[in-house]
């Protein structure tokens, strides 16, 4: 058995037995046995892994192939390939619904997701700095409060929140103010996951730098902006990626807060396609579904190591 290395992608050939054992004779014999065994294991590993990959990615593959097929073939024809393949579904999907084009929804989603990123990175980094670098009375109590908000189902707060936003005239409506209820929490560091992620990261940073700066007379705002923020880049990037993807995929809050079609996000618009009144137009649904997934997939391809690494260190949900 090889000692595990730190990088997951390191390409090592089958290795010898552990170096600590010095029985040269046995070692030689064991080594050749191990070589055969490890070759067999390697083949087995790839066979199993490939099977798992195919099963797991099949729905995604099926989705993409279906999006080119006419509706009746999506349900009736199990083969992923179709003689009638075309871009018709995409043309239909881009037309949008209720006199709003696809790009309206796309822009809405983009606005919400981008502002979420801005809100999360700004507010959570500031708050994380307070939790990890400043001593003040009650810090631990608040930290525990912050952690426990992660356990609370947000359904318990959504009703009063809705009532307040509704009274303030912020629910629905045709203007961009309709996004405020979706975004305000992001700017107030309401998602404990991101605060926690950044606190963990900041605690890992050495104290010398900011202590030196403090001795030089720098205040917390200076230290935060000119020392911590640059060092926090990895954590900020990871947070941004997740903030974007989660805001993009979010469905419950937009479903409740957005009720005029010109402010629908893609996910809410997508739900309208599944609506009973539009009949079973699977083709358009599939094309829309693909279009809605593309930004997430692009993010994944670009940042996959950071995403997977971020999960591993903080245990964020997917």
């Amino acid at each position: 058995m090889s000692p595990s290395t730190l990088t997951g992608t390191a390409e090592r050939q089958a290795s010898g037995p552990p170096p600590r054992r010095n029985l040269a004779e046995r070692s030689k014999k064991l080594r050749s046995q191990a070589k055969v065994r490890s070759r067999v294991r390697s083949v087995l590993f790839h066979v199993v892994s490939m099977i798992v990959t195919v099963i797991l990615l099949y729905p995604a593959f099926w989705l993409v192939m279906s999006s080119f097929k006419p509706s009746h073939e999506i349900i009736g024809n199990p083969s992923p390939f179709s003689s009638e393949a075309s871009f018709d579904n995409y043309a239909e999907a881009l037309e949008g619904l209720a006199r709003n084009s696809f790009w309206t929804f796309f822009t809405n989603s983009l606005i919400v997701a981008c502002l979420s990123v801005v809100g999360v990175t700004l507010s959570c980094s500031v708050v994380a700095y307070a939790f990890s670098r400043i001593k003040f009375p009650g810090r631990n109590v608040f930290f525990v409060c912050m952690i426990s908000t992660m356990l609370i189902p947000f359904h318990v707060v959504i009703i009063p929140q809705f009532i307040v936003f509704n009274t303030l005239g912020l629910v629905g409506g045709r203007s961009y103010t309709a996004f405020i209820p979706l975004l305000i929490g992001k700017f107030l560091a309401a998602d404990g996951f991101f605060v926690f992620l950044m606190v963990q990261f900041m605690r890992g940073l050495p104290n010398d730098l900011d202590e030196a700066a403090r001795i030089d007379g720098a205040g917390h705002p200076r230290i935060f902006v000119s020392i911590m923020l640059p060092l926090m880049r990895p954590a900020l990037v990871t947070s941004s990626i997740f903030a974007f993807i989660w805001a993009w995929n979010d469905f419950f809050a937009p479903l409740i807060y957005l009720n005029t079609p010109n402010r629908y996000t893609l996910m809410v618009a997508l739900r309208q396609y599944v609506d009973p009144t539009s009949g079973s137009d699977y083709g358009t649904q599939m094309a829309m579904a693909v279009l809605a997934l593309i930004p997430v997939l692009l993010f994944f391809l670009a940042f996959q190591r950071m995403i997977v690494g971020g999960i591993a260190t903080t245990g964020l949900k997917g």
Partner: protein
Amino acid sequence: MATQLASKRPPLTPGRKRLRRRSAFAGYLFLSPWLIGFFCLTAGPMVASLILSFTDYDLFNRPEFLGFDNYTRLFKDPSFIQACKVTGLYVIIGTPLKLLVSLAVAMLLNNEHRMRGFYRSAYYLPSLIGGSVSVAIVWKAMFIDHGVIAQIGQMFGGDGTGWVGNPKLTLPMLILLTVWQFGAPMVIFLAGLKQIPQELYEAAMVDGAGAFRKFFSITMPMLSPVLFFNLALETIHAFQIFNSAFIISNGTGGPARSTLFYTLYLYFKGFRDFEMGYASALAWVLVIVIGIVTAILFKTSNAWVYYSGDAK
């Protein structure tokens, strides 16, 4: 000054007092976004919904105080009981199954092989997109009458009917959807497996321990904190399933209330029927249930979670 900071419990000189006060001020200033958010978006609304849960508020009329009526009504409400049943089954079956699969695959990937990174990313992908409406739509289309799954079923003697229209099969279908997203806990398991000192396995090998022995005597105990973490996280998430059930049932919780998950019922009561008081009672019952389940997990964790000496 530096030495003063380093010393453990210095007497409170006026200068130090000022320093502490300044630091406290800066602390609250930096914390203020979260403080406002916590009080206005979490703590305040929680108290408000607790109060609402004792009223019949409907968004239009002045609320009237009902005492415990909403709570007693809950236990006579067949839809509430159904929602508890569906959600309970989903949590109790779905979560362990998902963790089992993710642990198995993590064990598989915990060896040095070419393309390990590729597999890890590929397996993680479903977790990233699994919660989106797109995937729910795909899932529905795959499991519908004469859909892909029904046709595969036909090869094994099925009758070509899908899972979507069958109240007995919609829950398994949603459980499959969550198991499909095993990537997130798997990545955490992998990180945990990497932390296990290799010497332990080598020592066990010298003692002639087999693979099973090694798994149960080394891997499991060493991995138990990670397992606990995953279990708690996944359980809490499972209670809150909404998107996929909503899309697959066309926003009805059907067929025959077989996908009437707790959060779906809460949504119907609160945002379709505008029974805000009753929905608040539902929400508080959920908080209490999740609280109890979390407490039980933590209490029992003492018995089976092994923290080695150097754990943080």
